[in-house]
């Protein structure tokens, strides 16, 4: 049984999707989704322990030996990402039941869970697979289902947001397939390990350069690297709260993982950063993202939109870490994958709680919310401290390693930029704190209770984890550092 866990990781959510569709009744489909996400989390946890104990796992789909057959290859990097994705899903699903009740017509709820399970399956598949074309197929499964999820938002602008994402996402995916195709034309293989081996034996040609370009641009569209982030703010703003939380915490993270996989495993560091000057390009774009997106976030009145722009800025930090191309920098990138998933997931869930009671997340309606919904607002503020990078939160740990990575390369300017851009986060988080805690409750405000426990507990689980992993960094930093060493091929 345990040797088939890599397959089950993908197959269980994939099977849960049609079951959700068939049972139709909303609470039953919720139970199925709950089972799917919790089983995924359990499998991801076992896989991570196995990888830590015995090293890389190679699973041959249907017993066809690679490189001809499809291989699922799990090393520390993707075992960690699998854990992130499935953990977020496991926390978001219990929350979804209560949250969807207000945001959704109850007769369509089973369709939500179907798309949600497909999206989870796609994201896990992208992460676990060791085959380049298989990666594209899973990427499209997750993308198509996330377009559906976003379009389920109540506002009609959700439809245009989903459409815009569909067009840009498809362009990105097509770029990725073209890149994979060019690599296949050059090497005659699709297995990532085999690709890496054959590419290393070959002189660099223009075809490989073109493949590299197509892949990087395509993946950058998916991970919303500035200036290819245009689909993201609308999509996260108008999607249902649960979807915003789930996608913000997982979809872009998986895309960052794919970028890591291609830059460091398929192509090697010399090609990515020597032959191609990608480190400079990524560095510049990441810095612009950190400043421009944070600055835009300051002026948003819709808090979901504010968090969306903040996501673009935070992705900038991850990419910045990757552009350093040293162990500390990469470790910071991988760490921030995990840390940002906790923080942003938690904050979007907190906004979902507010939306549940107020039916709005506009900053002008937040006056006195610190007293009207104390637990929810407290979660939001603690998450905000994480975004800033205050010590004892996970955000601090990421930034610490980011600065270490910058200093290791003697990029003092980069280290300074990380610290300065954090100040922008202080501004946009403080705006909310000021309104929520320092302004009086408006007189005509109806009395509201805090969010129900079914929503508060998942929110606090993520926010609590963002504190816990800020203090106890053994698991995260240990895995991230080893993962970075594995990617760079140093021990």
């Amino acid at each position, binding site marked *: 049984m345990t040797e088939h866990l890599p397959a089950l990781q993908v197959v269980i959510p994939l099977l849960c999707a049609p079951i959700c569709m068939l049972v139709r009744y909303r609470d039953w489909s919720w139970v199925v989704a709950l089972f799917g996400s919790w089983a995924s989390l359990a499998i991801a946890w076992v896989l991570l322990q196995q990888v830590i104990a015995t090293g890389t796992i190679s699973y041959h789909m249907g017993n066809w030996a690679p490189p001809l057959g499809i291989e699922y290859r799990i090393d520390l990097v993707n075992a960690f990402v699998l854990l992130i994705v499935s953990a977020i899903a496991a926390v978001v699903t219990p929350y979804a039941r209560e949250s969807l009740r207000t945001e959704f017509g109850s007769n369509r709820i089973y369709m939500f869970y179907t798309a949600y399970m497909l999206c989870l399956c796609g994201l896990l598949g992208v992460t676990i697979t060791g085959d380049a*074309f298989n990666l594209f197929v899973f990427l*499209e499964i997750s993308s*198509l289902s996330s377009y559906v999820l976003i379009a389920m938002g109540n506002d009609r602008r959700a439809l245009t947001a989903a459409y815009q994402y569909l067009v840009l996402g*498809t*362009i990105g995916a*097509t770029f990725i397939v073209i890149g994979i195709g060019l690599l296949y034309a050059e090497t005659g293989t699709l297995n990532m390990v085999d690709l890496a081996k054959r590419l290393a034996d070959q002189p660099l040609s223009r075809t490989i350069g073109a493949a590299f370009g197509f892949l990087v641009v395509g993946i950058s569209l998916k991970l919303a690297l500035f200036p290819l982030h245009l689909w993201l703010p609308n999509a996260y703003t108008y999607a249902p709260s649960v979807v915003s939380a789930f996608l913000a915490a997982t979809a872009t993270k998986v895309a960052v993982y794919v970028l890591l996989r291609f830059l460091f495993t398929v192509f090697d560091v010399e090609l990515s950063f020597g032959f191609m000057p990608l480190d400079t390009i990524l560095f510049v774009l990441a810095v612009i993202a950190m400043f421009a997106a944070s600055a835009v976030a300051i002026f948003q009145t819709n808090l979901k939109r504010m968090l969306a722009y903040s996501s673009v800025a935070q992705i900038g930090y991850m990419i910045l870490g990757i552009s350093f191309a040293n162990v500390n920098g990469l470790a910071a990138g991988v760490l921030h994958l995990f840390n940002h998933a906790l923080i942003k997931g938690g904050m979007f869930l907190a906004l979902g709680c507010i939306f549940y009671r107020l039916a709005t997340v506009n900053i002008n309606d937040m006056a006195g919310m610190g007293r009207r919904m104390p637990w929810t607002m407290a979660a939001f503020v603690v998450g905000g401290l994480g975004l800033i990078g205050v010590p004892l939160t996970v955000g601090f740990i990421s930034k610490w390693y980011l600065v270490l990575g910058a200093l290791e390369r003697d990029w003092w300017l980069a280290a300074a930029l990380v610290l300065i851009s954090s100040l922008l986060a202080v501004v946009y988080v403080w705006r909310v704190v000021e309104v929520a805690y320092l302004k009086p409750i408006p007189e005509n405000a109806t009395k509201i209770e805090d969010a129900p426990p079914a929503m508060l507990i998942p929110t606090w689980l993520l926010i609590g984890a963002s504190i816990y992993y800020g203090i106890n960094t053994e698991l995260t930093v240990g895995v991230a550092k080893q993962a970075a060493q594995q990617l760079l091929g140093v021990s």
Partner: protein
Amino acid sequence: MAAVGLYNYWIVVFLMMAGFYIVIAHDNLVKKIIGLNVFQASMFILYITFGKVQGGTAPIIAEGITTYSNPLPHVLILTAIVVGVATTALGLALVVRINEAYGTIEDDEIHVQDEES
């Protein structure tokens, strides 16, 4: 004669750029989807061209046949075509719902309505 021998690739580049241009330049949401389709079709042709072996026949085992085209890119592209169909279907479904919600499928008019509300 190298340029003529690369005939298929010229077609690919032309279709890719034409499709991409339609997606960017047109305001009509249905036309954007069509552009997206043309863009994807160029990628299908690219893959199929890779698979062609000069003088090769269809990859079916039969007596006297030694050179045949590489079937793998064809199979891959079958998958990609299915993905393309799903994307088109979903895109058009979204356009239908946008039309119900806004009463138009022109990007600029939708933009004006969003600004007003």
